[in-house]
């Protein structure tokens, strides 16, 4: 079983540290990290919290995600696939459609954050 996990890790793109492998591996991790960058886990967390608060149902989110993935596959299937980019795109589109967070407002905030003075980003 362990051999299988190691073999799979070869094909996985996630970063795996030696300390996370083998019988002593934390079972939660089980050979692979789930998020490569903090923004990915925060995006997942936001989607779950909004779903638990009934801003949208998980089925609605899932249907949106299927649509985003399908559109990507139709348009760019020769490019590298970035699941969390599509996940974030689904979330922002859903919130814009619901007028919870219109795209121009999000764009404006993103620009504001990008232009933060040095040392004031956190």
């Amino acid at each position, binding site marked *: *079983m*362990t*051999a*299988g*996990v*190691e*073999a*799979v890790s*070869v*094909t*996985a*793109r*996630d970063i795996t540290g030696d300390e996370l492998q083998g*019988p002593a591996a934390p*079972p*939660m991790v*089980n*050979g*692979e990290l*789930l998020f490569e*960058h903090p*923004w*990915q*886990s*925060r*995006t*997942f*967390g*936001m989607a*779950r*919290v*909004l779903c638990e*608060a009934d*801003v949208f149902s*998980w*089925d609605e989110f*899932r249907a949106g*995600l*299927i649509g985003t*993935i399908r559109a990507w*596959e139709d348009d760019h299937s020769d490019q590298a*696939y970035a*699941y969390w*980019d599509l996940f*974030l795109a689904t*979330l*922002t589109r859903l*919130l814009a459609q619901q007028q919870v*967070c219109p795209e121009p*407002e*999000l764009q404006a*905030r*993103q620009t*504001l*954050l*990008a232009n933060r003075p*040095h*040392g004031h*980003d*956190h």
Partner: protein
Amino acid sequence: MSTDHTHHHLPPQALRAEALESLLLEKGLLDAGAVDSVIIRYTERVGPMNGAKIVARAWCDPAFKQWLLADGSAAIGEFNLEGGQVEKLVVVENTAAIHNVVVCTLCSCYPWAVLGLPPTWYKDPAYRSRIVREPRTVLAEMGLALAPEVHIKVWDSSAELRYMVLPQQPAETLGLPEAELAARISRDAMIGVAL
């Protein structure tokens, strides 16, 4: 967290996610800390060790195994799992003649409560399409070479149905205590891409 130099190198997605979170906080749609709690829940408490405990129980308790295969959702009730996405869990058993493997061809449906969040390759278009067309080849590429006489069944997850594989118990582990067995069961074995 970031130094003076780093934020100008943040990828646009990171800025976009941060912008979204700050707006949702201001609008009162997110509580401070709620996102952190969810991340901790899914990275620390919801994970494949839940599925491993269920498999170990099935290996040790034939009556439980029968129940698990007949009605997965009901059988895992006593484990009080959080994480969701298992309203209808179907557990499929590997035998000497049949090997099962799970996919979601449309997106990334996966039984979070028993296996945690799906690994990256599970969400990859290559796995999602190829495992259906050429399962034997894909499994071999992932390190699992099955004998030609073993029949491979591919199960496509959906919003309604989530699958978990019940791996065959290795003969050398017969008689081991349940907790020890659980520690030996990998997430990938329960997806069906390892033994």
